[in-house]
């Protein structure tokens, strides 16, 4: 812009060029701005769609029926709309996934950041990315046809569809997220802190546990929260391997249904649009959106905190 003002105004040819350039510049700016705005429109679109359909749903079903019941049978003759049955399915599978992924992910992060050679680190990180990129329908097949039969030999009374097997496989799916983000947090801890610990005579192990991990704590929590959020929103693994029987239970051996699996179930059937049964998927989708958004916002806050490095 300072370039433009530097051009002498009394030169007519230059002025024409100047004008044309300014026009292009403005036009390009407007087009690029429109591109950037698409993401905002997407968010507004998601929220509007969910609010409109959910409002329609709650005109027919009371909040008390939705939040005060533990049976979910909107597709049956005797309808119940107790969301807790689906929330329990999601909570159970996600909890199993998190209990699998957190210990593995944190150990892997500690190893990569504190103990592994740079060479090992550089090889392992992309491999973990591959693990994160495997389509979830593939993980679903793996859970149903490999992990479940294997577990049935060990766990008595494990049904063909259950929460345990997809939960474990989902743990493998979110492992790279937790490992990679925690590793970023650990790696970002300044070397000076480690050196200070060594100077006090601490071993490498003590330094890792007493200095590095506490310093990176908020980053690690953010990584875990993002992992939870991915597990809650994950659809295909639980749809394929957890079954389609919404029930309020915390028994990992029996079939359950998650919020995501219910949405898929309805859209695969021939439920006509505009009916109450159809609107249920938006009410469930709204719950899902609010849950994951809250988790992501908290994680984002925690990570911002680290990026700013307010501690040092």
């Amino acid at each position, binding site marked *: 812009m300072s370039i433009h003002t530097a051009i002498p105004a009394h030169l007519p040819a230059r002025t024409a060029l100047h004008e044309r350039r300014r026009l292009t510049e403005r036009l390009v700016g407007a087009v690029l701005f429109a591109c950037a705005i698409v993401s905002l429109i997407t968010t507004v679109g998601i929220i509007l769609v969910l609010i409109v359909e959910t409002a329609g749903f709650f005109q027919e079903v009371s909040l008390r029926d939705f939040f005060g019941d533990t049976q979910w049978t909107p597709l049956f003759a005797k309808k119940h709309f107790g969301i807790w049955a689906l929330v329990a399915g999601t909570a159970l599978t996600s909890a199993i996934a998190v209990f699998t992924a957190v210990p593995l992910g944190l*150990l892997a992060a500690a*190893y990569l950041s504190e103990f592994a050679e740079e060479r090992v680190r550089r090889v392992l990180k992309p491999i973990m990315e591959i693990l994160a990129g495997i389509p979830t329908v593939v993980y679903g097949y793996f859970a149903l046809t490999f992990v479940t039969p294997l577990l049935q030999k060990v766990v008595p009374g494990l049904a063909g569809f259950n929460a345990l097997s997809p939960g474990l496989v989902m743990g493998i799916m979110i492992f790279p997220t937790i490992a990679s983000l925690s590793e970023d947090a650990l790696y970002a801890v300044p070397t000076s802190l480690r050196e200070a610990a060594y100077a006090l005579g601490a071993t490498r192990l003590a330094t890792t546990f007493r200095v590095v991990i506490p310093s990176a704590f908020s980053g690690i929590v953010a990584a875990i929260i993002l992992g939870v959020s991915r597990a809650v929103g994950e*659809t295909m693994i639980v749809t394929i391997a957890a079954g389609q029987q919404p029930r309020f239970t915390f028994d990992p051996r029996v079939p359950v249904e998650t919020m995501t699996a219910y949405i898929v179930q309805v859209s695969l059937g021939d439920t006509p649009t505009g009916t109450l049964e159809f609107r249920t998927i938006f009410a469930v989708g709204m719950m899902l959106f609010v849950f994951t958004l809250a988790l992501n916002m908290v994680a984002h806050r925690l990570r911002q905190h680290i990026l700013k490095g307010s501690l040092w």
Partner: protein
Amino acid sequence: MESDSKQSQETLREPQPSLATIGPEKAFVAICRLAVALPLLLLVVLVVDAVVDGWPRLSWGFLTGYPSRNPEIAGILPALAGSAAVIVLTAVMAIPVGVGAAIYLEEYTKPGRLTSLIELNISNLAGVPSIIYGLLGLELFVRAMQMGRSLLAGAATLALLVLPAVIMTSREALRTVPYSLREACYALGADRWQTIWRVVLPMSLPGILTGIILSVARAIGETAPLIMIGALTYVAFLPDSLMSPFTALPIQIFNWVSRPQKGFHTNAAAGIVVLLVLMLLLNATAIWLRVRLQRRVNW
């Protein structure tokens, strides 16, 4: 050189292990290695399992066949064609918008309230479950815009889904271009757009392309949003227009997995092998492109 200095730093900062402390540390490192190895081992088991299960069906006839009630003769041609068409359309829609948004955020705008709102929004969108995008696509594209359960609706939904990833990777690529180059360009009398178009974009192209290919490769495996917008599970024809109903490879795999018959599970495994090979090819292309293009702009 870099690794050398890194190594000397390492030796500097680490205390000499004494006999009393080396035991627990060794044990801990062993446990850590196990924690890294276990998921990677499972990855190998997963791939081997799919190949072993699907091997009997992996043939030319499987790739060029149409779905059938008989698992022995069912093929994935419509699913392959559908996936290819959806992915190309998704890329055509997501790339210009995503790169445009990245350029706007990196080069055009100043930090301010709107910019940070857009940034926060993009990072939130990246965390929205894909099935929610399916609900949006169903209401917005299929119903409100009356695209029906078409290729176009599917691709538009996936384009919105991959957009945050495209924007974020493109921004990172733009950021790698040194500021001095932009200043040199301004000094030659170029304006902002000329600088971006002639200098910044060509310089960051390898990074942008890699990011785009990786994001789009993810979209190939997306199942839930396409189920939501109503991609069909049984399609015995190839898509012939933007408005044509379609199926996609992950949808076909899901359909076969959810059937009780063993024969269809074999087909699902064979489909999975094809899907994984496709993703591997795309990832390899991304790496190859990066290496090749980087050589051209070597200073």
